[in-house]
């Protein structure tokens, strides 16, 4: 194994940039010997005509981006109906996930539910049990917030070792959208909570309109804090597969609780202990006992490029190392990046200050010397929590937790620029 690369000085960076053309096959050459026909010859797009404005009432990405799509892993589940697919985070930048390639997780498929057929019931320990139509919901005061939705099982296949080769597969059960909706608090207060009495020990049970129902119990404190009944995401209606026309948004908490096609909210004096909070979404520890109600998603990060699906193709020289960081317990305050498997760390640049319970983009602009790297990223959130290694997590939990794997990821980048998912000592 070769020595880790040295830290990058400002001068080293500039020198590397100037020399990049020499050894690299790809674009970026400092000097060309023969004129480039893409410049010297008139191209068809510079003389002919493009598409008219009526060609695409609602556009799809250009065909050359055809690999930036959701993918599923067949062997993970018994069928594709109660299953998962993955966001192509290796190919995205910024923080907002395009809805069309944002991951899906269903338990009885993506159902089709018209706004006209939509009903939301609030019942249980309320003053007036209520039924809302979709139109009713649009008449309540609205809020806008950006939040990540991360499946509790994201990175779950990696507990026992390095399994899937790509950030899309290891970390792609996540999306980050700007939601428009009505605070759940507003609807609960419309139904009236005097009947419920002391709210400190009360719960809400939320369930979807689909066959799986996906019922979950949420403590009243969270329900009254920041949960949203959302009907728009990234400016437009929710996609069918993301809960059209209405879903629950539970900031910072495991994706399972973000009930899609939400049809009923019941105020209760205890949790239901439904299937999705007993059989599933409970975390088995080494001694065979299990944690329940592990709601918050802890601070986590991953380098999205370079990564196994996004190898370095431009040779040595300037390299943008980038990735995502997020925390369910508040804002990301810092991300450190290591190129040598955790021996030394550099603090990366956040594209924008971290926002609470939302994806944060980080960059480390570096000069690659062409030697192998063991890339890692380590997130810190505003509580002071530092993203742990997998070894640290295993020490507390063992190997069978399935959910909540927020360990530091390592990509082995080889001299040819190809990258692989590995574990290191």
């Amino acid at each position, binding site marked *: 194994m070769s020595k880790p690369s040295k830290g990058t000085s400002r001068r080293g960076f500039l020198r590397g940039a100037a020399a990049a053309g020499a050894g690299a096959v790809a674009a970026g050459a400092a000097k060309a010997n023969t004129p480039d026909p893409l410049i010297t010859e008139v191209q068809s797009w510079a003389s002919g005509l493009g598409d008219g404005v009526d060609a695409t009432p609602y556009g799809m990405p250009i065909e050359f981006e055809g690999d930036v799509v959701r993918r599923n*892993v067949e062997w993970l589940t018994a069928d594709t109906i109660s299953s998962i697919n993955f966001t192509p985070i290796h190919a995205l930048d910024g923080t907002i996930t395009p809805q069309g390639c944002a991951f899906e997780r269903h338990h009885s498929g993506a159902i089709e539910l018209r706004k006209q057929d939509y009903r939301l019931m609030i019942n249980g320990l309320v003053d007036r049990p209520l039924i809302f139509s979709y139109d009713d919901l649009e008449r309540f005061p609205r809020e806008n917030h950006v939040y990540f939705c991360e499946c509790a099982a994201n990175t779950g296949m990696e507990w026992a070792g390095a399994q899937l080769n790509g950030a899309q597969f290891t970390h792609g059960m996540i999306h980050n959208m700007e939601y428009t909706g009505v605070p759940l608090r507003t609807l609960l207060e419309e139904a009236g909570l005097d009947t419920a009495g002391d709210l400190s020990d009360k719960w809400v*049970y939320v369930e979807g309109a689909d066959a799986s129902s996906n019922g979950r119990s949420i403590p009243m404190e969270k329900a009254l804090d920041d949960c949203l009944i959302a009907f728009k995401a990234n400016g437009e209606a929710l996609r069918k597969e993301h809960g059209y026309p209405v879903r629950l948004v539970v900031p910072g908490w495991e994706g399972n609780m973000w009930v899609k096609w939400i049809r009923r909210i019941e105020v209760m004096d205890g949790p239901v202990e439904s299937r999705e909070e007993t059989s599933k979404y409970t975390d088995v520890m080494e001694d065979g006992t299990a944690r329940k109600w592990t709601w918050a998603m802890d601070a986590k990060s991953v380098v999205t490029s370079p990564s196994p699906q996004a190898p370095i193709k431009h040779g040595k020289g300037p390299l943008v190392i980038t990735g995502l960081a997020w925390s369910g317990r508040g804002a990301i305050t810092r991300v450190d990046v290591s190129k040598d498997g955790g021996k030394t760390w550099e603090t990366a640049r956040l594209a924008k200050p971290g926002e609470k319970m939302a994806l944060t983009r980080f960059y480390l602009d570096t000069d690659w010397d062409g030697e192998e790297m063991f890339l890692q990223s380590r997130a810190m959130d505003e509580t002071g929590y530092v993203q742990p290694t997998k070894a640290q997590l295993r020490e507390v939990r063992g190997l069978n937790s399935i959910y909540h794997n927020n360990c530091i990821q390592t990509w082995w980048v080889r001299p040819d620029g190809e990258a692989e998912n590995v574990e290191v000592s």
Partner: protein
Amino acid sequence: TPAFAEGFGLGRTALPEEIAAWDIDIRPDGTGLPEGSGDVWTGEEVFADQCAACHGDFAEGVDNWPKLAGGADTLADEDPLKTVGSYWPYLSTTWDYVNRSMPFGNAQSLEPDDVYAIVAYILYSNDLVDDDFVLSKETFAAFEMPNAGGFFVDDRMETEFTKWVGEPCMENCKDSVEITMRAAVLDVTPEEETTEDT
């Protein structure tokens, strides 16, 4: 609360029939259960008709479909088998989930007596009751699941947060870095069909 005390006057009162149709959740103490009962042998017949194609004749699971029985005392093993019998803490969850979401693809088609019978059969398949067992609204509360005490509330703030907080190491954090595991060796990642033009 004060800001919304007046309310917006939106929505309408839910009728009792509507609440009854949708509010079907069952609490751990059995609250919410309808009248009815079912025995193991009836359950075996219903299970064979409605469930066995995926879950097996003895609830042992077919192919990748969930196993509902077995796995007793395996939770601390290297490869635990988590079933209704070995893992689920409350019988109410089984009744509720079968009633609202099973059979897969034809949910909410079972009558209460069918559900009682299926649940009785699942208990029998897990060796938790004898073959003359009858499950009913009345006998329900007396039954305790083997792993009822196996769960504890999220303790990460005490057991993890306190360890992993503060200024982390930045230099000379370890002496050596060796690869201990490689995803490419396992080779279970779907092939990329790239449309990229290189």
